[in-house]
């Protein structure tokens, strides 16, 4: 086998530009595959961290009647939980309300949260620091859709537990920026005690967000949803992106591998006399097959080296400055940062190298098998069809 590689190396080096063109095409596929997968992994990683920090925490303890996917369940999906069972949990109460910014009416979700909480990254301390009578906290998306800014006053109308309408003017105490649309679009955050008070729902909670030290236990009337379960939609979306990515992966790999396959087929046809000479000089047919296969495999090694030379600086650069897509994930209901930072794990890089090398070796072996059936006399004459 060592001889096969020695000879293959000499042959490829001797082939000059043709070798580097093939290696170049394959290296491009190789770098793009790593970049794309790195981007998806980076997005996944970032989305996971953002989701945990802003929304999911370490899981959620949800009232049994509340279904996050059913707006009608907000009305009755709340309940009390004994104080001693609320350790390491941040309570949140959700109600529906309307706001009237600049004369327009918008439906929103009013979310009450403990202003002193530290489980989520929501800057709820602003609610404590505000001097306004009725401070609320909103996200950038909400601010943009309602066309309001910090300090603006808006008319808020809600219904209490008896169905009686009430209204008040609230002040936007702060606007936060987040990549997580689920805590931003169409939502107003306020102190939970205030919300419980105005809705006559004292001590009522829709769900709790668990912090890192929370130990899940059975609580009657409440369901604990794990972090993994809460992430499932996002995970599904990322998996779908990965499938989309694998199509790109297959297309690029096919282009690179086709170039090698084509070269090998032509090479075996064009180098018949050479093959005949190898056999006449004492190589077995399978030794020649191995040599041609090694040549194909070596294209991929050259592609890896070439890819590393120009790919490492490019991939490193993008991992530092990130890539802005100018797209808002909230439109798709997914967590998506404005800038995504690709993450290149060792598994991704080495996995891609192994796949590229194995595939290139395989596509080289397929045409090279023909040599094993070649008649050396015909090959020496260059008459094999």
């Amino acid at each position, binding site marked *: 086998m060592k001889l096969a590689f*020695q000879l293959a190396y000499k042959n490829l080096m001797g082939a000059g530009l043709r070798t580097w063109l093939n290696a170049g095409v394959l290296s491009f596929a190789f770098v793009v595959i790593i970049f794309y997968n790195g981007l998806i992994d980076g997005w996944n990683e970032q989305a996971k961290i953002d989701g945990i920090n802003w929304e999911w925490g370490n899981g959620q303890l949800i009232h049994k009647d509340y279904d996050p996917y059913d707006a009608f369940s907000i009305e009755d999906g709340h309940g009390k939980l004994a104080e001693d069972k609320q350790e390491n949990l941040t309570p949140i109460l959700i109600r529906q309300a309307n706001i009237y910014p600049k004369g327009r009416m918008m439906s929103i979700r009013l979310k009450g949260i403990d202003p002193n909480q530290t489980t989520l990254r929501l800057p709820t301390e602003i609610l404590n620091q505000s001097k306004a009578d009725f401070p609320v906290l909103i996200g950038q998306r909400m601010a943009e859709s309602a066309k309001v800014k910090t300090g603006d006053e808006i008319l808020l109308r809600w219904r209490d537990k008896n169905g009686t309408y009430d209204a008040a003017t609230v002040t936007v105490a702060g606007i936060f920026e987040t990549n997580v649309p689920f805590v931003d679009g169409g939502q107003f955050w306020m102190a939970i005690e205030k919300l419980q008070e105005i809705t006559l729902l004292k001590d009522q909670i829709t769900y709790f967000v668990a912090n890192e030290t929370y130990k899940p236990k059975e609580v009657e009337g409440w369901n604990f949803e794990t972090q993994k379960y809460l992430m499932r939609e996002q995970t599904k979306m990322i998996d779908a992106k990965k499938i989309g990515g694998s199509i790109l992966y297959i297309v690029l790999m096919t282009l690179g591998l086709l170039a090698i396959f084509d070269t090998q087929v032509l090479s075996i046809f064009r180098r018949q006399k050479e093959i005949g*000479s190898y*056999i006449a000089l*004492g190589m077995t*047919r*399978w030794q020649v097959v191995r040599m041609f296969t090694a040549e194909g495999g070596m294209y991929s090694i050259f592609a890896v080296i070439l890819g590393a030379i120009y790919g490492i600086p490019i991939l490193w650069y993008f991992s530092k400055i990130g890539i802005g897509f100018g797209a808002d994930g909230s439109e798709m209901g997914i967590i998506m940062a404005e800038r995504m930072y690709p993450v290149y794990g060792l598994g991704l890089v080495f996995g891609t190298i192994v796949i590229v090398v194995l595939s290139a070796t395989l596509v080289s072996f397929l045409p090279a098998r023909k040599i094993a059936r070649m008649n*050396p006399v015909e090959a020496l004459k260059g008459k094999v069809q």
Partner: protein
Amino acid sequence: MSEKIIITENLIKRFPVGDGEFTALNDINLSFEKGEFSGIVGPSGSGKTTLLNIMGSLDSPTEGSCTVMGKRISDLSHKQSAQLRNLHIGFIFQVYNLLPVYTVYENVEFALLLQKRSATERKKAVMEALEWVGLEKMANKKPSKLSGGEGQRVAIARAMVKRPELVLADEPTANLDAKNAHAILQTMKKLNEELKTTFIFSTHDEKVMGYLNRLIHLEDGKVAEDEWVTVKKSQL
């Protein structure tokens, strides 16, 4: 000269042609002894190259037998055939068949690489072989930079570097001018005398025939005449 290096007995070779068959060699009974400088001569299509290919274990007889250095060609596996060629047989082709991406040195070294000889051993043998053919200063050149005569001398060095018992030369002077043809033949004759290597040529070139000790005339796949000739000293 008593050790028989090649024996053919009732050797027949047929090739399929369309629905029928073409008999390229018909009932060939020959034997070659160690150190011979012989030629299979005859017009194109007489079966010279086919016989040479069978003797070089690149092909096998349809019927009969060909025994080379005690080994029956038709009984050899691909691997055994390759081993026989690698260790004992050198080939010289009409169009040299040098490996284009290798240098002269690497072309000559190739057979020794297959024998897994050490680098020192290879270097010594290659330089010696290049000296035999007077190309030691061209070791680093690529075949594309060589003239026809130089290319064929590299092919001789490549065939001889492993010191084979048998060298099969298929029309070795067909692409050379008279001056180069004589130079090549003189080199081969010298190696035949010094190293006792058996040379068997396939040729229809009068210049080559002038150097040979034995001429086996093939006509339509049959041995028409097998004659031993005395080579004039002036020819060498």
